[in-house]
């Protein structure tokens, strides 16, 4: 039984321009202790997926459409009562956010904020909570945790604050940690430290990690499996090494091709032509076809489901190029 199983998740937002289908039929699985990466560009629905799992979508305007299912430890979160959800949040499932500088309440010391979680979810006394909180700060690698404990957020750097956020997220020993772009706001050297910290904590605590990022480098470093999202849907899934070495969906190929490499200084970076269509009206058929160099008539008519790729290794891709009934199926070759 997977720890988290999301089936056909659809999260729609009602806007003045129409219904924005931000997440449109996402299914994914996270096993206990594994790291799953969700990668995609801005507006592809990664963050909304994460917020939906914790039921943090503001309603209205947002709505998780019926027919969706989010099972955590075999419990249907979409049917859970608010009080039960509050028990799960921060306790069994924790989340860390992109902006450490603004994710902590500026009027309280960081210690106060760790304490609050420990006292609420674990029922510790003030003194026990302080001891546990200082230990947590030490565990996430904050020097002089006893003194840092009484600092206010504005007295600490972004990297330190992200460590504090991780400490808060870990305080109740969650079985799933959702990290929404945890390193995007940090500079590169700190990014590496925070990622290392996440990986080592994930191992030592045996928790599952759902890592959301737009950075394939982060994925390569941390994740066991990857799902690639585009236009509110998953377009490709597979193990990290498979996705990075042999991308099957044209979008994933485009993403990888647009990474700068070492050496080729005078080579112009490739980019995927066009822009992401609006969530209010996704194109009929394949949502990537306007930007895809392989698109043909069939792509305009309808979009495929996630089709198995590569002989049953569990990889899938949402592309007609992989339709076994189509003559042109098979491994995609780079057009010349």
């Amino acid at each position, binding site marked *: 039984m997977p720890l988290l199983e999301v089936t056909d998740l659809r999260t729609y937002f009602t806007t003045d321009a129409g219904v924005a289908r931000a997440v449109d039929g996402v299914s994914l699985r996270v096993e206990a202790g594994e790291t799953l990466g969700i990668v995609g560009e801005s507006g592809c629905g990664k963050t909304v997926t994460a917020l939906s799992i914790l039921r*943090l979508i503001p309603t209205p305007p947002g709505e998780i459409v019926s027919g969706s299912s989010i099972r955590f430890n075999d419990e249907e979160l979409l049917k859970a009562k608010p009080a039960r959800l509050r028990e799960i*949040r*921060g306790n069994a499932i924790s989340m860390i956010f992109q*902006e450490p500088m*603004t*994710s*902590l309440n500026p*009027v*309280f010391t960081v210690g106060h904020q760790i304490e609050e979680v420990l006292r609420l979810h674990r029922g510790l006394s003030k003194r026990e909570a302080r001891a546990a909180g200082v230990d947590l700060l030490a565990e996430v690698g904050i020097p002089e945790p006893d003194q840092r404990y009484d600092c206010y957020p504005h007295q600490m750097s972004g990297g330190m604050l992200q460590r504090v956020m991780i400490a808060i997220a870990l305080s109740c020993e969650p079985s799933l940690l959702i990290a929404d772009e945890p390193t995007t706001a940090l500079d590169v050297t700190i990014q590496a430290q925070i990622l290392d910290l996440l990986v080592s904590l994930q191992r030592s605590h045996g928790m599952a990690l759902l890592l959301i990022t737009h950075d394939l480098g982060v994925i390569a470093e941390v994740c066991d499996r990857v799902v690639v999202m585009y236009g509110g849907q998953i377009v490709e899934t597979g193990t990290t090494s498979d996705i990075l070495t042999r991308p099957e969906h044209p979008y994933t190929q485009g993403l990888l091709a647009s990474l700068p490499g070492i050496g080729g200084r005078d080579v112009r970076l490739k980019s995927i032509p066009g822009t992401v269509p609006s969530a209010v009206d996704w194109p009929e058929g394949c949502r990537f076809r306007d930007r895809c160099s392989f698109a043909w008539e069939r792509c305009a008519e309808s979009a495929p489901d996630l089709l198995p790729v590569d002989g049953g290794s569990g990889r899938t891709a949402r592309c007609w190029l992989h339709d076994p009934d189509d003559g042109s199926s098979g491994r995609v070759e780079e057009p010349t």
Partner: protein
Amino acid sequence: MTDVGIDASDSGPLHAFGRGGVALSAVLPGLPQLMVGRWGVGGTSLIVWFGLLSVLLTRWARFAAGWGGPLDHKIASLTVVAGLLGAWGWSWFDMSRPAESRSIGVGQWSLAVRAFRKNRIAVVGLMVIVGDYLIALVTPLIAPRDPATLAPLSSRLLAPGGEFPLGTDHLARDVLSRILYGARISLSIGFVAVGISVTIGTVLGAVSGYLGGWVDAVVMRFVDMVISFPRLVLLIIVAALFSSNSIFLIMAVLGFTQWPGTTRIVRGEVLSVREREFIEAARALGFSRRRIIFRHVIPNVLAPVIIAATLGVGNVIVLEAGLSFLGLGLQPPTPSWGSMVSEGRAFMIDAWWIATFPGLAIVLTVVAFNLVGDGLRDALDPRLRV
């Protein structure tokens, strides 16, 4: 600790005092602070100390009798003791703690305190307010005579000087004593009415701003309704409905009509605070809506609330004075600044002192509250802070 905000002007000389400073503060609280240029805190504690000590020495008989007397006498005697011990204890504590912990800018509150201290005129205003409240508390000890007792008729309308420092009114009552007793009325009405309005305003504004939707719509229409109703008319109606105008009635009426402004300010602030990421983080940690509103949202909007409250006290004092001036305030012979101005109006030409001194008291107090309010606005608004 970080070296953020160590105030160089503070740490050096004070530290140099060493044990001498501690000893000095035991003799004269506030003096060591004054000597190193912290005139605000030093001057205040010195003045409070001297004032209360002279009250204690010159009114010893009343002070001693106060413990067995009515409640206000008990409070007055208690204030003298607490004030003396407080001034002495604070100064001693301030001198004996290490210099660093005194001036490290930790939270945003201590940053605001430092910004406020730079605003000298606001500090003077604060000292006036503190003095006002102290005087109001110890009035039974220091007032020369009872505010309602009539002297022999021969001493009607006496000019200031001699036995009656601020003169007597048309009923031969001592104007100074009546002003001192009147301070208790004006200041307690200001304090309680603003307390009521700030509590209602903050809770309603925060709930309405955070929850939004129909709750917000209902609360804000209610605010519109209360604002659109002319306040003075409401006060006159209530005063007419209840024949005995107790001080609590006036506090309640002023308090329950003062809150809409605070509600609007708080709601506006909450609308921006609730979109901040730490509120989403709080929800992701499984905090309830009530906990988020009261423990996470409200502390972030307190700065404008404090400013509105300070300015509101001045506003309420003026309103009460106006109400008393119209004869709708407290019943005579209870002295209130507004009713004294009203009574003195008829004698303005012959006996200017009856209306002028309470009028000056109103002006001084209200100006002090407004100065402090403006100082707080500058100190608490990070956009204005350098």
